[in-house]
């Protein structure tokens, strides 16, 4: 049974409250280290940091609307082999979901990790965040949260949070061991902290925070937010499907791709040590290019751009958790996230698979069901 407590807030400064909470966690909790996003001292950029010294948490700000990378990959690096210590990792819901996918693929382990999730209000793209944050790191975060929770939206100047965040139907990290809640919570008084698992409960108990219940407004707040995002998402699916409904349109959609492979590097669930596109498999014979050109009279160079995206879709669309880092990383503004989420919604539905939901759900290609897709396999012959 879930157990909830309060992180008290003074002066409306939720950033400071959270910093206090993390400090307590590192000091009192049975953990050796904390992985948490911090403003780097030399720059206002927010990056995950691995902290063992409770005094080094001053820039901690998991609520900052910054999402420079999906930290699931960082956690994977930390846990691929025994790390020999317990680490609490503070993640966004999409990072947790990506990490769960990676654990299924043996690219990480839950053994020594406590997942701490924070209600996610969304984030700007890297370029936009640097404009948003200006010189004022903590205050910008506070105003972002205030505005959001007061219903004033997240738009700033001419930009807004990324479309991945706007289309995200998982703002609440229900599968974290420890959940920090903002939605539907009176954040001027306190933040909600909720233990979802025995691991989380154990950690929460060690902190001696005042107990509380889940505010009754929370459910509605979450439902409204999810409904709004689903609406946005479905519109996005519709538009993207239309924009890519045949090969010609797809070519046009992906025309700006230069095979830099940034999207693949940024993708948390693209987990190969070396992508097949940079191995000898795609080391075509020089004469082959000429033969291709001869067939049609003209080919676009570099080749294999559409093939690359189709391959990535085939490989990981069932595991796509929709974090949008692909689009964030694209130098040419190819709407990669929109395409991936649109296709993924189809493949995930086909396999009745929800990535990142639970370690219990086996990835589709690891499961064999004799009777599935009989309309495709001609099971009835």
């Amino acid at each position, binding site marked *: 049974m879930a157990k909830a407590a309060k992180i008290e807030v003074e002066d409306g400064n939720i950033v400071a409250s959270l910093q206090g909470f993390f400090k307590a966690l590192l000091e009192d909790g049975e953990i050796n280290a904390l992985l948490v996003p911090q403003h780097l001292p030399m720059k206002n950029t927010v990056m995950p940091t691995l902290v063992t010294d409770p005094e080094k948490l001053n820039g901690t700000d998991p609520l900052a609307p910054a999402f420079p990378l999906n930290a699931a990959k960082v956690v994977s690096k930390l846990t691929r082999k025994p790390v020999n210590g317990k680490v609490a990792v503070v993640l966004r819901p999409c990072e947790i979901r990506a990490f769960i996918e990676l654990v299924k693929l*043996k690219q990480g382990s839950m053994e020594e990790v406590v997942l701490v999730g924070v209600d996610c209000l969304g984030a700007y793209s890297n370029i936009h965040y640097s404009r948003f944050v200006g010189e004022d790191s903590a205050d910008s975060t506070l105003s972002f949260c205030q505005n959001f929770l007061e219903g004033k939206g997240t738009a700033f100047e001419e930009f807004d949070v990324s479309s991945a965040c706007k289309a995200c139907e998982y703002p609440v990290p229900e599968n974290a061991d420890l959940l920090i809640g903002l939605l539907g919570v009176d954040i001027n008084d306190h933040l909600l902290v909720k233990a979802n698992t025995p691991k989380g409960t154990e950690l929460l108990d060690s902190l001696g925070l005042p107990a509380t219940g889940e505010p009754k407004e929370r459910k509605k707040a979450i439902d409204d937010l999810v409904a709004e995002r689903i609406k946005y998402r479905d519109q996005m699916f519709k538009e993207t499907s239309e924009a890519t409904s045949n090969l010609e349109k797809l070519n046009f959609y992906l025309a700006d791709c230069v095979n830099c492979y940034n999207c693949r590097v940024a993708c948390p669930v693209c987990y190969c040590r070396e992508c097949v596109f940079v191995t000898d498999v795609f*080391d075509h014979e020089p004469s082959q290019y000429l033969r291709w050109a001869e067939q049609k009279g003209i080919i676009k160079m570099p080749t294999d751009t559409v093939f690359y995206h189709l391959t990535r879709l085939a490989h990981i669309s069932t595991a796509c958790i929709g974090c949008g880092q692909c689009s964030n990383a694209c130098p040419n503004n190819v709407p990669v996230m929109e395409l991936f989420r649109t296709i993924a919604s189809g493949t995930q539905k086909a396999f009745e698979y929800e990535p990142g939901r639970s370690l219990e759900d086996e990835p589709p290609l690891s499961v064999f069901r004799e009777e599935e897709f009989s309309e495709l396999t001609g099971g009835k012959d």
Partner: protein
Amino acid sequence: MKRIINYHVHPVILSKKGRYMKKKIGSCLVVGAGISGIRSALDLAELGYQVTLIDKEPNLGGTLMQLDYQFPSDHCGMCKMLPLVERDKASQYCLRKGVFHENIDIMLSTELVALDGEPGKFQVTLRQKSRFVDPERCIGCGECSRVCPVEVPDGFNAGLTLRKAIYLPVPHNIPNTYTVDVTSCTQCGECEKICPSGAIDFGVEARSRFRILVVDDELVVRDSLKEWLEDDGFHVEMAESGTEALDMLAKDSFHLMLLDIKMPGVDGVEVLKRAKDLYPELTVVMMTAYATVETAVEAMKIGAHDYVMKPFAPDTPVPVVAQLYQDILRTGERLMDVGAVILSAGFDSFQPDEDNNIFGYGVSPNVVTSIEFERIISGTGPNQGKILRPGDGKEVRKIAWLQCVGSRDMQEDADFCSSVCCMFAIKEALLAKERSDNQADATIFYMDMRTFGKDFQRYRDRAEKDYGVRFVRCRVHTVSPADEEGNLKIVYVDQSGETHEEIFDLVVLSTGQRPPVGTEKLAEMCGVELNPWGFCKLQDFSLSRTSREGILVSGSFSGLCDISDSVIQASSASLWASRLIHSKGGGLAEETETKEAQFRDVGSEPPQVFLALCTCGGTIGEAVDLNALTESFKNTESVAEVQVIERICTQEGWDDLQEAMRNSNANRVLIAACNPYVYAKKVRELGERIGLNPSLIDVVDIWTPAFPGRDLNGNQLTREISATVAMGIARLKGMDPCPIPTARIIQKALVVGGGIAGMTAALSIAHHGFDVTLVEQAEELGGNLHYLYRTLEGYSPQELLEDAVLKVEDHPNINVYKNTKVIGSEGQVGRFVTAVERADGSVETLEHGVTVLATGGQEAKTAEYAYGESGAILTQHELEKGLQDGTLDPTKFRTVAMIQCVGSREEPRNYCSRVCCSSTLKNSLYMKEKNPDLQVCVFYRDMMSYGFIETYYTKARNAGREITIPADVLVLGTGIVPGNYKELADQFGVDFNEDGFFQEAESKWRPVDFIKEGIFMCGIAHSPRSITESIASAEASAQRALRILNNERLAAGSIVAEVRHSLCVLCERCIAACPYHARRYDKAEDKIVVDELMCQGCGSCAAVCLNSASVLRGYRDQQVFEVIDAALEGLG
């Protein structure tokens, strides 16, 4: 033979590791090429014996060719019988299409006609009928069939369609050669004229060498016969009396004598006697008038081949003579020595229109047999799988299956159960439901639903509950026409005695088994006994040994059995054949000379392809411009040379190819011809001859595009052929020849479980000279045999036990570890390490190449029916023991009640234990014998007296029983439960099913294998079975084990998966995807490891691997991309 051929001017490094080859001495004949015959042949071939597999039909596969679907999967799956190790020695494609194995010589249209000699060295005579069509020349175009004027019912479709006299026996064979049905062929010669490749030859020209002597005192008969026969091209001479005939026979040799019976002087019969004395090879046909028919029949007893009735028109004697000519002159005989003979001649189906024909079969077209129904639902059947009535083509909506037609029927002299029809009918009913989208109504009328096999009961329950198949317990006595439209009326009486009348669209008769035609002759020839129903009689406690040593039986020749039992029996037969040959010194001894093929190392050379284009006897040459094609391929990158060769498939063509290769520097060979399947063996031989790794030689099919009927024009055809060849070149270019991996085998076996199954497996393996450790956790060997004192047939289990224990304990190759437990095992096929804990607590480690799990089961405990509350309530085991030790005296009882299926055939233990009904019959009959006044009352759901056990059921019923309650003793048939295998399954990495029995790799085709190669199961650990059945499964598992043990090293296939470790990220998706358990994560090495022997090259791992860290040899990504590009370029 030249071993190493060096064609290269540069220094050549010869690969040290060639193919590892060993040949076993000894050979075996398998008669009948159905499932069991193929299984036995493959078994022996895999052991290294030379096998001759014959079938009297022109096609392989027996009954299974007609059955597209088998329960429980309702698919086929025959290919699962293909060899899993040393795969390259056999074909690796659909077994329904054909069987190829290096060690198997297949002879079709062939019969065994004589057998002499003794076990271990039989001389057999095989007679092969001419099929008039030269398989080397037939291109399968079907022109012959098109022009043939004769139409007869097609046996393949159970007579539901028509075929020509020249036809394809099976539509899907490879290669598919047309064949002539000699009995219906009129030899009009039309097909011979139209055949584009000259493959058909009726030998009309050679008829003038066929010498016929016509003997008749009537000139007019002599003259007209001479005229008619000479018109047809035969050579005819005449004699007007018996004396003259004998004189002529003395001077000249004749093939055939047409002999009148009634002649003055020396009459026909006398001539026949003397002629047969002097010239036993001479064929004699008697000519007789009506008055002397009886004499003619007598004449046949003393050697006449046949008789014809006078007076006759030309169309009577001429076809007879033409037929005889074929039989005599165009039949090949082959004599050979074989160590053992396996009879797998199958069965015939009961013909329901014989005798009473109470169901109107043959009268109403809508009464069909189960085989006919099978053809109706087949995609290759009369309606492409639509269920239409034969009578009027109407969609079928209401079908009745009538069970036990020609079985369990004293009036038909069939006091036996045909064992398979119940499941067969359920399967057909399910298929009917599925095919009709549940529109068809399916009803099965049965007496007992005999679901005695593993998982059968659940299949039946599913049919009833999930699919709505209706089961009606009742024997239907007549089927009558309901109306003019061909509907059928069935009147039946239900369980409550009420009479019902129901109308059906279609009635399917589940026809039972009969011995195949010719069984008596075959039995007499082989010197084996038959049982009272004409099937082959077996020795006590054996499912494969006949009354004569060296003559074994596999499959339904000793009584109908399903696929799984046939396969087990077939392997039991091959085991015994091998034991015999081994004991006679042939054995598995290695041939002294092992041949190692040596291949050129071409790894560093750029690819140079030699392309051979076959003309396919002009077919391709006529359709496209071969010269232009040749020129265009010559200009293709990596092509060194192009040659057009006439008919590569013939020996001449093949010689031409080898000759051409002799002068070539090419390091790849692409043969563009027809069916690539048939070239596998030839390609390997070519590789060895020219020193080129066979993986660098490939065959592509350019013939199918040119197939008549596709009607491609010259340009389209050229494009398609170009694309096909370009694809072949692209694939060969990327081929990276590696030596085929081999693995060392520890030639020792571990058998876990010392019951009769375990002991039999141990003995069977040890007998072949391999060391066996037999581990038993109890103090004594013997298992359940300790509780059994007699069998239904009257055999003695105690004698069997004593004998087996003695043999096991005395055998120099068997180490018996009693009071010993397995505590852990690891490894793979060929290399297992197992730790066992001995009685004294010490732990010992055993190395072994194979494992047999024979861990048994026991009688189920029950708390039902007040068991345990009264001494008068017993289990069948307890009854048997009490009767044996005298604590129970049947003479003291007046009434005994028995309850069957206690706790069985219902969830959670929803399976039939197979042996309880037999135990019940056995104990009942025994008590009745001791006390004829005793009343035995058996409460049962379905009496599972399958096969010839039925006869004891009849006997028990005749002995009389009445329902009288209360009873003196209540006996419960509680069934069998498996031991607790969870720990054992974990230790060995194998699975068990929901009932706790071991899970076999495939219920029908690999019944004693686990998915994990190298581990086998037998006895009750597999599923409940009788002593005899346990022994057979143990022999089968030993056979499966021996095919591995028999090799110091085993070769994998040339196509196996590999891991490119530098790319591998250890996500283990490939492990989950591998259906053969051939992959594992090696923690110490931190690597994914492929067990190359277990890998079957299916490529699932490569498909799930995202960055091609897992690759399939011969199908690397670049290669496949190039093939795709070639295809697209070629099609332009």
